[in-house]
Every structure is written in C-alpha cells, then in structure tokens.
C-alpha cells in the first residue's frame, strides 16, 4: 500500500469517533434525501407512471350483451389503431350487503360493477394486487382498492358479501384488493361467477379494454372509440370511459398533496445538505494539525488534499450505502401513505433516486472536504502544526467577554459563548435547526387547519339524524343516508326555534322516491324533533357557466344547518345563493354578483350572497332556497332530511321510533356520522411521518456537530475540569452551547413555518377547488407559538445530551493529554 493509502487508512481507522460521525451523518442525510426525493417523484404524475406500469387501458368500453355477442365484441381488438386489448369480460351490477368480520359494522354498500376476469394480468389493464390474493375459484371476490382505506388495507379481507336482491342470495368472500389504474371495475370475480350475479332473465353486459397507438388527446380517443363502435352492431356499445377522465381526477387529487410534499421534501434536502457540509468541513478542519505533521514528513499539498478528501469519502461512502438501505426502508410506509392518497404510486423508490442521491451526497462530501483540505494543505507547515485543533484565535472573544459578565452560572456563560468560536459551523447548525423548527411548525399548522376544514366539511351533513327518501335502484330498502362530508351535501345544525318546522316539499318527487311531504310530516310528528329541513340534489345550468352545476335546494329553515362560510353569509330567502369557489371561478363572479339560473323555459336571477367551503364537485355547487327553483320553473323534491333533536332526546330511541314510522313510506332514518376524509387522513399521516423524519435528522445533525465541537475542545474541557468544573457543570455548558442555538433557531423557524403554512395551504385548497375559511388558517395563537418556539430548543438539547454526557464523563487527565 502506498504511503498515501496508509495515511488514509490510518486516518479512517484511528479516528473512530470522527469516522462514526461521518458515517452517521451521511447515512441520515442520504436516508432523508431518498425519502424526500422518493415522495417528490411519487407525487409527480403518479397516474402516468402507474398507467405505464400497468399497461393501463386507454378506453374501457361497455357493450350490451343483448345487442352484441362476445365473439363480435372480441373482434373489436382488431379495429384500427388498437395495439392491445383485454376482454371481453362479462360485467354484472349488484348491491352487496356486507357481513363484516367481528369488530366491523355490517351494512349495505352501493351497487358494484363486478367484472368476470380469470386473471389479473393481460395485455391491457394489468391489475396490481394491493393485499390478499387473486381469485382461485367461485365464491370469492376481489375488491378494487379504495383511494383511502383508512381502516387499513387488510380490513376487508375475509368479509362476506351477500346479494339479497339476486336469486338465491349469492354469498362471496373478499379474498383480496386490487388496483386498476383506469378504474375499470369495482370488483372482480371468476367469469363463472357472473351468471349467479345477474338478475333472473337478465343478460350481462361486457367490458372490453383497449390500448391505442395514438391516445394523447380527447380527439384521438374519440376517433379510436368511433373505430371500435363501428366494429360492432350499431348501438351495442352502451358506454365508454377514457383514461383521460380518470387521469384528470387523479391528478386533481394529487395536486392537493404536491405543495406540502414539496415543502417537506425541500426542507429535508436542504437540511441534509447543511448537515453534511457542517460535519465534513468540520472533520477536515479538525485534522489541520495532522496535515501539518504530514507536510513536515514531506507530503506535498496535493497529496495532503487528496488524502483528506479520501478520508472524508471513505466513511461517507459507507454511510451513503447504509443510507440507501435505510432510506428505502423508511420510504415504504411513506410511499404507502402516498399510494393511499393518490391511488397510483409505486411501492418502491425509483431506482435512479437510489443512484442519484448517494452520488450527489458524495459530490457534496468531496466539495465540502476539498475547500478546508486545500486550505490546510496550503498553510505553511509550522502554521498548520500550530493551529492544531483549536478554533482560530480571536473568534468569539467578544461573545466570551459578554457572556462572562452575564448574571448566569459560569458554565452557562461558557456555553453561551461556545458557538461563537466556530461561527460558520454554528450558523449552519442554527439554519438546520431553524429548518427543523419550520417543518414542525408547518406540520402542526397543516394538521390543525385540515382538521378544522374537516370539521367544516362535516357541517355539510347537519343534525344528528339523516332521513333519506330515495329507494334503492334494485327495489330494496333505501340506502343509508349520506354521512360523509364533501361527497354529498346537506346543511348543518345550528340553534333553531325549538319547535319543529314543517318542510315544504313539493311534488311527489322522483320515481322510486318516498313521498317527501309524508316523510316531512312523519318527522314533524316525531317526539324529540327540534328542527328539520329537506334538501334535494339536481343538476342545473347557469348562463355563462359551461356545463351542468350541482344545485342543492333547501326546503324549510336551514339557518341552523349552514355550510362553513368562506365569505359573505348564508342565504336568507329565495333569489339568493351560496356557492363554492369553483362556481365563482367558472362564472367569473364574486360574492354580491348576480347570475342567471336557466330553468325549464324560464330563468331567474340569483344573487350570490356567500361563498361556502365546498370540496366536492370541484367547488361548482350552488346552495339555494327551493323557492328559487320554482321561479325558474323547476321543481325540487327532497332526497334527504336533516333533523336536529331536542335537548335530552335519546338518539337511538328516536331513530328506532322514527325508522318504524318511515318504513311504510319507503324512507329510512340513520344517525349522522362525522366523516373523515381519506385525503385528510393521508395528509396527516404523511405530515406526521415527514415531521418525525425532519426532527430525527435535525436532532442527529445537532448531535454530530456537538460531538465534533466537543472533540475539538476536549483539551479546554480538561482544563476546566482540572480547575474544578463538575460533571454536571460540564454537561450544562455543552447543552447550553447547542440549546441556545436551538432556541434562537426556533424563534426564526416558527415564523418561517407559519409563513410556509400561509403559502402552501391556499395552494392545496386551490387544487381541491376551494378556498379555506380564514378561521381555519388562523391556527397559531400565543400558547401554540410559544410551544413551537421551544421545539428548536428541545431538538437541539436532545441532540446535545449524548455528547454532553460524554464530555461530563471524560476523565480530566485523559482530556488534558489530548492534543
């Protein structure tokens, strides 16, 4: 081995603490960067990545089994521009009743589109199994993985589904959950099972999945669709879904996440770079005296520079390798959370991140090591020998002088002055802790705001009881009333008059709907009813607004059950409306403006009196008094009644009695359940995980720099101990030196985190098609700010505890001997 090689090997092997610090630092930085980078990449066009991976279908077409035979449908695979096709798969639509395993509530679910499919692979729309296993025979069903399975991916495995509306009430067991990127079905069974899921005398429809040579635009997809339709008997294609529609929906959801993922990712990356910079340059600087010795022995400046860069790179490379392994490990739950959020994320970190991050870190290590190594190599030998490991003389003297006069114990004073001896390193540590504090502050604000938004959205389903008047499509009992905010909107509970007010349902409603007037009377007559109103959901058109708009019409006094308002006020009578942000944008209107509701041969002017927090329907929703519709020649019949109970009323008893009264009418009552958006759950979980990662990286960053500082000043520590500094005083001094950097960093990091929150939340809300009420953004108050400001102090103190203990335990004689 060459002399230079021996120098490098000895430098790495003999300086164990320094080597360990380098390994640890690089490992953590690479871990954090891989996790951050992996998430950022996962948040970039997740649909497109998943679509490519799964050979997603550009078009999912449905065919009427009475109009076209399976053979005719299969022949469409040869239509022009079709490059691959899967199917035909027989499809049945049926409503299951869940017979849940112990611990989970049973209930009736919505109708499922169930495709008969022998295997999960194929030339198009390859299904990714999320949990469980693929079908092995009849009696089993694989469900489409939901966008947000907050109960956990395995929660439904083993659940029994029965289909009471079908002959023989077939029963299936859930054996797995799979994901189709194009959402081509709600569930899959083996082809032989489809017959049992088809109503007596019915004919199943068929699904055919296509990939085309040209499918980049709606126009191309339309041409492709026309070519397929031309290949089967006219009118037999009953519908088709373009992947572009699903893609737009997924991308909109992804856009909600991207701002905060980017914020955390950038914080993590910058933090990693800072910590690497501190530690590597510090480690090389600490070797200045050794550099002097090597030069005295005849090594040239270039050899010294190479040796010291190599001494930094060897442990850094080991740390980087460990970091890649740990980073991938840490990324598993994070990517799972992202997958839960987006529904289309690869479960593993992209391969090129595993290469790019460690390579980038090693370049950073070389750059950080090169400058001090060359500076030390350029020193005159005697100068390098004299500089030794102590900080450059003259630094921090003013601070030491001032700290010596402070009315604090001397150990505290020395600790306060300590950071000024290495101003650049202290400033970098400060910046790292400030970033950590900003991350914690941002995460706190994000979670608090989102929870408030969730509470606000839950106001969209007001009252303790919901009554639905709609019968099930299969003629069974009415479905459960809407309970989840955002997906369906009804009003919210607020003080009423204390007496029940009659609903003013008009007409007899839709076919399959219980008589709303009779339902209203039953509710009003029910003891314990304090107030109620009815709501109906319909599509409507407004002049100057492209496409249909979701219109919610209220019958009765809804003032006690309003949405959370972003601006303006709730409507007080007909001719007024409260709208979502998406509607304002689409109409180019503001609160106070008037829009025209286009009715059945008539139209009416509606004044926008308020903007509400609405995330559903892209915010293109209008809430108004039902009488507004009458003015436009439209009729509204309540689908749902929201009921507020009188004080002291037992809800369970009330529900039982009301449900019995409603049963003959074909309506059904249910308890209002506070919803919890899977998006909010996923964001909370990811923010929590990322914050924890930031805290750990920051704390360990502080630890490594304090270790470096303590090692460099070990001789001074020996002197102080020889003068009588007790172990406790030594620990206090070391902790103070890091703690007060953390305290100051917290004071800056907290406002930075608050600023980030104020910037990112509106962007996230914008992606969700809404604005956030000011009250939901104002989450930082004096007590919270004070607690968050302490975060920097706590992280820095925690990071310094270990080296402080080491310093306190170091034997004085050993420390004094250390050069």
């Amino acid at each position, binding site marked *: 081995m060459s002399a230079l090689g021996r120098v490098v090997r000895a430098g790495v092997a003999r300086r164990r603490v320094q080597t360990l610090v380098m390994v640890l630092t690089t490992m953590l930085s690479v871990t954090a960067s891989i996790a951050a980078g992996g998430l950022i990449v996962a948040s970039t066009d997740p649909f497109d990545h998943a679509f490519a991976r799964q050979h997603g279908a550009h078009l999912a077409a449905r065919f009427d089994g009475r109009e076209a035979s399976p053979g005719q449908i299969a022949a469409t695979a040869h239509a022009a521009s079709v490059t691959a096709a899967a199917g035909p798969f027989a499809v049945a639509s049926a409503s299951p009743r869940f017979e849940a395993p112990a611990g989970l509530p049973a209930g009736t679910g919505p109708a499922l589109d169930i495709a008969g499919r022998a295997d999960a692979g194929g030339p198009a729309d390859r299904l990714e199994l999320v949990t469980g296993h693929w079908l092995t025979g009849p009696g089993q069903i694989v469900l489409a993985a939901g966008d947000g399975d907050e109960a956990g991916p395995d929660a439904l495995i083993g659940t029994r589904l029965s289909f009471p509306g079908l002959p023989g009430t077939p029963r299936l067991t859930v054996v797995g959950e799979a994901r189709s990127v194009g959402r081509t079905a709600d569930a899959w069974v083996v082809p032989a099972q489809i017959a049992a899921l088809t109503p007596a005398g019915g004919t199943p429809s068929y699904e055919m999945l296509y990939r085309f040579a040209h499918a980049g635009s709606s126009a191309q997809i339309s041409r492709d669709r026309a070519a397929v339709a031309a290949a089967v008997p006219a009118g037999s294609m009953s519908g088709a879904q373009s992947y572009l529609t699903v893609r737009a929906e997924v991308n909109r959801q992804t856009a909600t996440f991207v701002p905060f993922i980017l914020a955390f990712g950038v914080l993590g990356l910058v933090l990693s770079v800072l910590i690497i910079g501190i530690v590597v340059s510090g480690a090389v600087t600490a070797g200045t005296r050794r550099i002097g010795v090597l030069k005295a022995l005849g090594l040239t400046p270039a050899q010294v520079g190479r040796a010291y860069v190599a001494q930094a790179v060897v442990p850094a490379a080991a740390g980087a390798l460990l970091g890649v392994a740990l980073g991938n490990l840490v990324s598993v739950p994070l990517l799972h959370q992202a997958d839960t959020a987006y529904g289309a994320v690869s479960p593993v970190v992209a391969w090129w991140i595993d290469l790019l991050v460690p390579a980038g870190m090693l370049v950073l290590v070389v750059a950080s090591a090169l400058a001090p190594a060359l500076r030390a190599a350029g020193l005159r030998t005697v100068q390098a020998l004299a500089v030794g490991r*102590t*900080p450059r*003389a*003259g*630094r*921090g*003297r003013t601070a*030491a*002088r001032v700290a*010596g006069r402070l009315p604090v*114990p*001397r*150990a505290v*004073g020395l600790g306060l*002055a300590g950071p000024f*001896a290495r101003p650049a390193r202290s400033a970098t540590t400060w910046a790292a802790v400030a970033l950590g504090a900003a991350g914690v502050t941002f995460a706190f604000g994000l979670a608090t705001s989102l929870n408030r938004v969730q509470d606000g959205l839950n106001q969209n389903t007001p009252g303790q009881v919901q009554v639905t008047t709609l019968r099930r499509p299969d003629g069974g009992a009415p479905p459960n009333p809407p309970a989840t905010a955002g997906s369906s909107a009804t009003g919210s509970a607020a003080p009423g008059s204390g007496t029940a007010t009659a609903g003013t349902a008009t007409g007899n409603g839709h076919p399959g709907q219980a008589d709303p007037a009779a339902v209203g009377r039953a509710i009003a007559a029910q003891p314990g009813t304090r107030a109620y109103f009815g709501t109906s959901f319909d599509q409507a058109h407004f002049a100057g607004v492209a496409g249909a708009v979701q219109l919610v019409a209220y019958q009765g006094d809804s003032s006690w059950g309003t949405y959370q308002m972003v601006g303006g006020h709730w409507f007080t009578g007909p001719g007024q409306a409260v709208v979502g942000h998406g509607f304002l944008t689409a109409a180019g209107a503001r609160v106070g403006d008037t829009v025209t509701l286009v009715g059945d041969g008539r139209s009416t002017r509606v004044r926008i009196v308020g903007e509400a927090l609405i995330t559903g329907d892209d915010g293109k929703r209008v809430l108004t008094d039902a009488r507004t519709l009458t003015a436009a020649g439209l009729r509204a019949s309540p689908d749902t009644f929201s009921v507020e109970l009188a004080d002291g009323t037992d809800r369970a008893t009330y529900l039982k009695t009301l449900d019995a009264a409603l049963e003959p009418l074909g309506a059904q009552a249910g308890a209002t359940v506070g919803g919890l958006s899977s998006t909010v759950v996923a964001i909370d979980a990811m923010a929590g995980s990322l914050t924890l990662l930031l805290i750990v990286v920051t704390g360990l960053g502080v630890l490594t720099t304090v270790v470096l500082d303590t090692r460099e000043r070990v*001789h*001074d520590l*020996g*002197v*102080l*101990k*020889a*003068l*009588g*500094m*007790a*172990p*406790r*005083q030594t620990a206090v001094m070391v902790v103070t030196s890091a703690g007060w950097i953390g305290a100051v960093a917290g004071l800056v990091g907290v406002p930075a985190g608050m600023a980030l929150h104020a910037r990112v939340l509106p962007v996230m809300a914008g992606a969700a098609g809404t604005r956030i009420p000011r009250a939901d953004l104002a989450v930082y108050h004096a007590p919270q700010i004070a607690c968050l400001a302490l975060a920097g102090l706590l992280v820095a103190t925690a990071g310094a505890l270990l080296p402080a203990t080491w310093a*306190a*335990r170091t*034997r*004085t*004689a050993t420390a*004094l001997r250390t050069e």
Partner: protein
Amino acid sequence: MTPSAPSITTPLIDIREVRKEYDDGPPALVDLSLTVAAGEALAVLGPSGSGKSTLLNLIAGLDRPTGGTVTVDGVRVDRLGETASARYRRERIGMVFQFFNLLDDLTVTDNVLLPAQLVGAGRLQARARAAELLEHLGIARHAQAYPGRLSGGERQRVAVARALMNRPALLLADEPTGALDTASGAEVRELINELNDEGQTILLVTHDLALAGACATRTVELVDGRIARDTPGTRRTRGGSAVAR
C-alpha cells in the same frame, strides 16, 4: 468529603501504600507512601516514566489509585466521585501546567476568575481577589489582554494567579518552567519561592534539577514508581505577606 483543618501534626498530604496499575505495562506507582507538611515546597524528581505525573494526578483527584489511600487536607481523595473530586479541586488545590492551559478566548482576568465563578463566589469579591492577585504577580497591566499576546513567563504568572484564586491549601505545579525561556523560567522560580515564603504549600513535579534546587524545601526522587530518595532541599522559607492564602 469531610474536611478537617490541618495542624502541625497532621500532614497536608498523606499518601499510604499507593499503587497504580494501568492495563498494560509495569505499575506506575508501587506501594508508595509519602507525607507532606503544610508550608513545604516539595519537588518530585525523576526520569520520564518514573511515575511523577501519575502521582500528581492522584493527588489532584484526576485519577484513582489501584490500591492505597490518598488524603489531602483531610479529604480522602481516592474515594471521591467525579463531582466530589471536581469540588475538591476547585476548593482545595490549584494547578499550574507546563503549557499554561489558559483558555485563549478569555481575557487574563476572565481566566483568573474562572475557579471562583465555578464555585459560585460573589462577583465583587471575586473581581477584587483577581485584581489583587494580578497586581501581586505583576501582571495587572495585562488584565484585559488575551493570553496569546503575553510572553511565556507572563502566561505562567496568569496560570499561577488562576491557581491561587480560591486560596487553595495546595498548589500543584507540573513542569512549570518546562516551556519557558531562561529569563521567564527564572521569573517563575522566583514567584514560586515568594508563594512558599508566604506559607503556600507547593508540590512541584519536574525533572529540572535547577528548579528543584532553587525552589524545594524537600526533594523526592522517583524511580520506577518507587521513592528512591527523600532528601531535604537546600532552600529555606522566609515567611512574608499572605496574598497566596
């Protein structure tokens, strides 16, 4: 720690059957016994590896013996834990090192004040004591200077002032002239004599026979961890002012 006032009959340092062994190599001290009376200036001589520094470390409470007892100023130093030995050092002994061991980022005054600040002494009293010592040792004009600007002799005077700050019963000096030029070395020798004349008990560790001859009232020579010779010194105390105490 149970201090008791030293008397004429009680030695300030009482070392009995002390043995010190390290992990490898021969023992540094072998069943060494030694007493030092208050007011003595004892020079411990010996070649490298004879156990001088080990003996100094045991007396200073920086290290613990493998066997035997070390009692200084009535305190069983060999039994002290880390915190108690730190308290012992700051209250009962002062240390002067070959390379001064001043903190470069503190002024002369702040260096001297350190031991008093570590015991939590009153601010005004400590400053007055520091000023008195600096004046007495002839370095008052450098009170606000940083150690890096002083000569070796001046730095060692600062170190001595720091060592005397808490009026220690015992002053330990480890090669106090080892890093000094001839003139500065002579200055320090004179200072040590003055302090001893004022009643300060001093234990010098050195291999400088000239220093021992000039300063010691008694000389002990160590060879391979044992006392080879214990002889009275040539110097006699004169008595004087009581700045050191």
